[in-house]
């Protein structure tokens, strides 16, 4: 019994050494395999949620994301919606878009972005739309998150 335990111990120890050896050359492969698992996705609180509507405008593409009401279990009573603009050629001075995130045919809010100084105005047309919670200029566009109530 002791001999078997000794042999198993050594085999396990050598396997550990092999794990270190294959870890780095196989890192790309293992990472891809892990990334393909269903839980390997960034939570919408951080990713902004899936893009639900795309509008092609003259100077930019407007992306309206799915509203995010994430909670550990179920849904939160407060959430946000992410709006992204992607420039086509150059940065427009002012962006002014009416957003209908619940696709009921009526705009829920109007958002105006003054790209020169970063000012953003929200004009809520739906009582569930609250205030701007985050915004930033990205390499080729602009992102804004607006607080929503359920």
């Amino acid at each position, binding site marked *: 019994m002791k001999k078997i335990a000794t042999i198993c111990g050594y085999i396990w120890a050598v396997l550990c050494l092999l794990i270190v050896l294959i870890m780095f050359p196989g890192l790309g492969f293992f990472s891809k395999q892990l990334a393909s698992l*269903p839980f390997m996705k960034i939570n919408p609180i951080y990713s902004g949620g899936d893009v639900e509507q795309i509008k092609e405008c003259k100077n930019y593409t407007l992306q309206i994301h799915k509203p995010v009401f994430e909670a550990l279990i179920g849904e939160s009573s407060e959430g946000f919606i992410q709006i992204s603009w992607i420039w086509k050629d150059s940065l427009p001075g002012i962006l002014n878009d009416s957003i209908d995130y619940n696709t009921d045919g009526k705009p829920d809010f109007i958002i105006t972005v003054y790209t020169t100084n970063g000012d953003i105005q929200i004009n809520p047309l739906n009582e569930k739309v609250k205030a701007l919670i985050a915004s930033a200029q990205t390499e080729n566009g602009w992102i804004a998150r607006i607080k929503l109530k359920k």
Partner: protein
Amino acid sequence: MKSDKVKLPPYTTAGKFWKSLLICLPMIFITFFFLTGGEPDFSDTTNSIAFILVFLFLNFLFFKIIYTGKTDKFRATGFILFAVFLSLVFITNMVETREGMSFSSADLLECNIPFCHIVITMILIPIVFTNSIIFPGSILDGFAPVSTMLILWILASIALGKGFCSWGCFYGGWDDGFSRIRKKPLVKNINTIFRWFPFAVLLLVALSAAMTLTPTYCEWACPFKTVTEFEAVTSTETLIKTIIFLLLFLGLVIVLPILTKKRIQCGMFCPMGALTSFTNKVNPFDVRIDKEKCKDCGICEIKCPILSLDPTSIEKGKTHFVCSKCGKCIDACPNQAIHYHIKGTPVNKRNTTARTLFVFSGFLFLAIFSGGTFQMGIIRIINILTTGSFF
């Protein structure tokens, strides 16, 4: 040289040059392969200098580990420099790409934040409930994506157990380094109850992250933001966060390790250390104490940087399960009673094979993981010395 030989531990390789070199040969080939990326190219002088320096440095350290039979001093040299070089490379990268050490709202909204292994402690409960990762990083692309860091930690934990904290963690070298500055500690007799602190931090961090779906430790308590990146100070809240992480770095990573000669951040605060401790249960390597040789002098207990030795564990003939296998106690024991051991194999004797297998695995991980960083760091240093710019 003769007097050295007398002091050498009774490993079959210790003091035997050719036998040690033979054991080092695989390390020499493997490091050559990884440092050159499998395609040696010596056309660029700076790159070649960086490669040669790193290759020689790493193999010198490993040779010394085998030849002298001493582990900790040479491991720590590589480990500490890895932490310093990683910060150097990371910060210079940040300065190049973001013009400073702080990340912006755009980086957060675009999920461009590098993932580090400590975040794993916070994503586990949310993964179960939300089926997603609560971190503003990338799953597969960019620098330090989630999947790569997860794989690295999982495999390193299987192969080294908590040895990851002394052989692979790119933060651990900071307090390991500061804990070596003084010859003798000013604050002695640290109560071993503090070894449970990281578990309490882990409990709170895991619960609070699940509760808020935010990586709370990263946001509020991670001292290593001081040497990597942090949120830009744009409000009173971010100012308070900045003060907290700076104070934690100053206290846990610099001042307390200097005063106590212990790795305070790693052994008494880091939630990842607590989580990684459990991997010691599945890892085949551990550290044992030969009760016949042990004279209960207590030197190992004083030397252990993370409180994994106390009279109870010495009585049991093994280190506590929080042991990070740094080898400090093994080197310090005047009676050579402490040794690396493979579970299942006979105890109570210094076994060259067990030691060689563990230090080979540990050092190989450190060498491959740190090699690129060392090379990059040296290139940056050469650049700043010759051109006045890091790039």
